[in-house]
Structure formats: C-alpha cells, structure tokens
C-alpha cells in the first residue's frame, strides 16, 4: 500500500563513445529524483552526457539533482551535457539557471 505500482522513470547507461550517456525515460519528480542522483553518482567520468529525448517531465527536485551533478563535475574540470531537452524542459532549465551551467545539445 502507499506506492503506485508502475515505475515512471527508467535509466540506462550507454558507453559506446567512451563518454557515459545516461538515458532517461519517463518523469523525474520527487519520487524518482533519488534514482537519478544514484545513477549520476555511479558515473565516474570527466564528462557526462544525459540524454533527455525520452524524458517527459522534470521538476525542481530533479533540477536540484542535476545542479549537484554539474557542480561536482565542474570541481574536477568536467562538464555535464544535456541532450535533446523538450521545450518544457528547456523552459525550466532556463528558469533555474541550469541552462547557463551546462552544455545543451538541441
């Protein structure tokens, strides 16, 4: 009881180019942001790409996780790349200031 049964976010990591690409499917909110944090923390790389093509929603808790990740990467001279954000995702990236902290690939 208490939790809805259907997962609303899925994460896969692709390593085809040597740079890890975290592919997010579904919705990132207060219930799935902790999973996003875990996946990002497990990536030991100078540069991380997060593919947002199939991400249908992100809120302030998810944005907070991405801000934490980009700060960690910047401290080591690295970068976070956000790939293919939707128009609504791009809007909250702009509102939060995160768009100015990362590389965005449209």
């Amino acid at each position, binding site marked *: 009881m208490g939790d*809805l049964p259907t997962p*609303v976010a899925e994460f896969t990591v692709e390593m085809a180019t040597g740079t890890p690409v975290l592919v997010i499917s579904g919705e990132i*909110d207060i*219930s799935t942001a902790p999973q996003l944090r875990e996946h990002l923390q497990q990536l030991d790389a100078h540069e991380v790409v997060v593919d947002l093509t199939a991400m249908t929603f992100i*809120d*302030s808790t998810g*944005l907070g996780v991405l801000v934490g990740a980009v700060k960690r990467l910047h401290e080591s001279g690295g970068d976070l790349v956000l790939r293919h954000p939707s128009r*609504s995702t791009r809007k909250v990236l702009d509102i939060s200031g995160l768009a100015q902290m990362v590389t965005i690939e449209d």
Partner: protein
Amino acid sequence: MREEVRLALPATAAHVRLARLTVASLAAGLGFSFDAVEDLRIAVDELCYLVGAGRRDGSITLRFDIDDDGLVITGEGEARAQPADARRLSEQILAATVDSYELGGSDGRVVCRLVRLREST
C-alpha cells in the same frame, strides 16, 4: 460555467503524479494549449511539493475551480521544513508557469493558490 473538482492524496512522493495527471486532463479539456498544459503540470507539481508532498504520512488536498476566466488551483497540506534554495526554485517556477500565485498558511498548515487565465494560453 463554474465547476469544482477536489482531489485528496496521500502526501507520499509517488502520488504527486496523480495531481499532474488531473490538472493535465482538466486543462486539456478546457482547451488550454499544449504549452499551457505543460506549464500547469509543473506548476501543480511544485504546488504539491510546497504544501508537503514527499512525506511518509499525512495528506494533501487540491481543489480545482474552473470558470470562464480560467483555472484556479488551491492546495493545502501540513507545513514542513524545506531547504530555502529548493523553495526559492519552486517559487521561481511558479512565477514563470502561472499568471499568479499565493503562498501562505498558519497553525502548521500551508496553502498555495495558483491562477492560470484562459487569455494567456
């Protein structure tokens, strides 16, 4: 036209998406644009967070008031401590996604009210 829809949810994190689904359904039915529906999805999500969603117990209530002018959403729940940065970001998002919002409360309760007008769609 004047209608009211009420939704009571457990305050657990997993139920916030029911609030998003509800507002998306209502807004789409009212003829709001795709972008306005997306704005309302995230605004209601932030509202839920501000009124206490994410706890293991308790509940939050949402009321959707629909009339010819647009949609007014009022959320209420138990107040909880939130990091100042997180609350600031939630309010920044609200300011950018609805026409107006109010946040208040007393006696351990917090109330958040959002207004999205039809004219702005």
